[in-house]
């Protein structure tokens, strides 16, 4: 178009040469978004904001951190005691990791509940699983940096997972360590990778957003947007809703940072690393516990490792395991039931991962692990054969405008307004 699009002539001059303002207007302002999104759709933007918080606090922490086995622990204590606002920055970064996982796990279960991974959003979903994997690697390496007892032994146990690989396992572990045990070379490379991986995550997040904006957000009833009447512009409607969600999130986050900063951590990590003594009870950070439970449930080293990674791998192929063409659980009574079983199963695995690997806990871990895979590999492919789905509304607008028996609780609440 030859007509200037923006009021400000400078903006127009720049935009003609570098269409950054057109791009932002298109993707952040007028971007048509389904008008029925509920609060579960806040967690994508919350995850993005948390990523930025982590990167910003991480960069300033790195200005005061020393990646050497003799100085790492003390440099973190110096951050806590002597560096101006160091305690605040570290507690934000430390708790930020936990909150990042809380937000992302809710985001993932939102996708599971409303079938957001289904055609045409398979690549969007796969990129999301990739982000989860990168987050796990980054979080794990970040946890090693303070060089406390849990840092050291967590690093030892996790890197040793690779020794389960037949033939080349030992060589791979030596290569990962840069020596014969977790030592200074390991700490150095973990610091380097912990610094760079978040920027890789940013790259994948951009791809995730490009894929998202190709077809737009899914929505609680899971049917496609039929036209303009089904959407509202992203700004101001969802910018303000996301900001409101952010303020609630920030309140909880701040409460943790200021009042319970060590609630989600382990006291053992305030003991400097000692390669000669393993703490009596090694547990990973809470966000790894379900996977840790799966690892320990399998009474075979290689098998445990394969099942643990398999628990994530199965998510990559989820769009092809769930063969039902109906997206939202609101119209899939059986899937909805199994979804909640899966939620309970994952929470149970998290609990069992924190318990010692003995007695009844081992039995329960095995049952919960079996059910996890049963859900994805057996239930999901078979479900469409036996499930009678509820009739789908004609469009997103229909259940809002007319009083339909299909209208969900969310819709009903909107009607009251």
């Amino acid at each position: 178009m030859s007509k200037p699009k923006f009021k400000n002539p400078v903006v127009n001059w720049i935009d003609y040469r570098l269409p950054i303002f057109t791009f932002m207007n298109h993707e952040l302002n007028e971007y048509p978004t389904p008008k029925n999104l509920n609060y579960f759709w806040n967690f994508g933007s919350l995850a993005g904001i948390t990523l930025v918080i982590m990167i910003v606090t991480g960069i300033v922490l790195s200005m005061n951190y020393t990646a050497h086995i003799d100085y790492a622990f003390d440099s973190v204590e110096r951050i806590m005691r002597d560096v101006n606002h160091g305690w605040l920055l570290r507690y934000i970064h430390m708790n930020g990791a936990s909150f990042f996982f809380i937000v992302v796990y809710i985001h993932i279960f939102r996708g599971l509940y409303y079938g957001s991974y289904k055609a045409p959003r398979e690549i969007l979903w796969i990129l999301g699983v990739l982000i989860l994997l990168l987050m796990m690697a980054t979080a794990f390496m970040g946890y090693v940096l303070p060089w406390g007892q849990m840092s050291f032994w967590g690093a030892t146990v996790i890197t040793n997972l690779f020794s389960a690989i037949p033939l080349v396992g030992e060589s791979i572990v030596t290569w990962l360590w840069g020596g014969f045990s977790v030592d200074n070379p390991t700490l150095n490379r973990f610091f380097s990778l912990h610094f760079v991986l978040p920027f890789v995550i940013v790259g994948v997040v951009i791809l995730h957003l490009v894929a998202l904006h190709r077809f737009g957000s899914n929505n609680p009833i899971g049917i496609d947007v039929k036209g303009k009447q089904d959407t509202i512009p992203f700004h101001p409607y969802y910018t303000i809703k996301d900001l409101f969600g952010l303020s609630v999130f920030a309140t909880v986050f701040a409460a943790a940072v200021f009042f319970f900063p060590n609630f989600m951590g382990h006291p053992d990590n305030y003991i400097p690393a000692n390669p000669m003594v393993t703490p009596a009870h090694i547990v990973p950070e809470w966000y790894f516990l379900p996977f840790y439970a799966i690892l320990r449930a399998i009474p075979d080293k290689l098998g445990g490792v394969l099942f643990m990674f398999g628990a994530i791998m199965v998510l990559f192929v989820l769009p092809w395991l769930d063969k039902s063409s109906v997206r939202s659980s609101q119209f899939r009574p059986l899937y909805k039931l199994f979804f909640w079983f899966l939620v309970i199963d994952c929470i149970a695995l998290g609990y069992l991962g924190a318990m010692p690997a003995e007695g009844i806990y081992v039995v329960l871990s095995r049952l919960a692990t079996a059910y996890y895979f049963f859900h994805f590999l057996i239930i999901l492919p078979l479900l469409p054969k036996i499930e009678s789905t509820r009739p789908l509304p004609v469009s997103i607008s229909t259940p809002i405008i007319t009083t339909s028996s299909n209208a969900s609780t969310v819709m009903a609440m909107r009607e009251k307004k």
Partner: protein
Amino acid sequence: MTNKNTPDDKNKRDFLQVSTYALGAVGAASFVWPLINQMNPAADTLALASTEVDLEQLEEGQAITVTWRGKPVFIRHRTKEEIASAKDQLLDGLRDPQTDDERVKNEKYIVLVGVCTHLGCVPLGQKSGDVKGEYGGWFCPCHGSHYDHSGRIRKGPAPTNLEIPQYSFLSDTLIKIG
């Protein structure tokens, strides 16, 4: 202009194309290898590879832990009963069958890398008050592996016996590990 795209020319071009790609791939790989190999143990790390230990003061029934390559090495001066129980064990019941003789140079002293072969924790059993597991040797608290007096895996998730480091007796009571 005449069209020179005869079948002969096409074959030549295919050959040139394939050989260029192949050479490019070899070139890229030879550049990537140093990037990967720099993560393997450096020369100074490899140089720190031996430790000498004097066992003169180590009484029967006592154990000491020394550091070798950043890992703990367990040395236990075994009692006669411990030696006997290690020797009498039949190989049938073992996950990683080895006789006690294969695992010691002098039957009084058992020398082991003190790293559980499951996921790398340090097993308990070196101190007198430690839990030693159901077979009296060592017990890994992380995931519950039990080792016997010869450091052989008897119960739990660990796949193999505790590793025996390279070592030699320089005299009756002086050993060099590595």
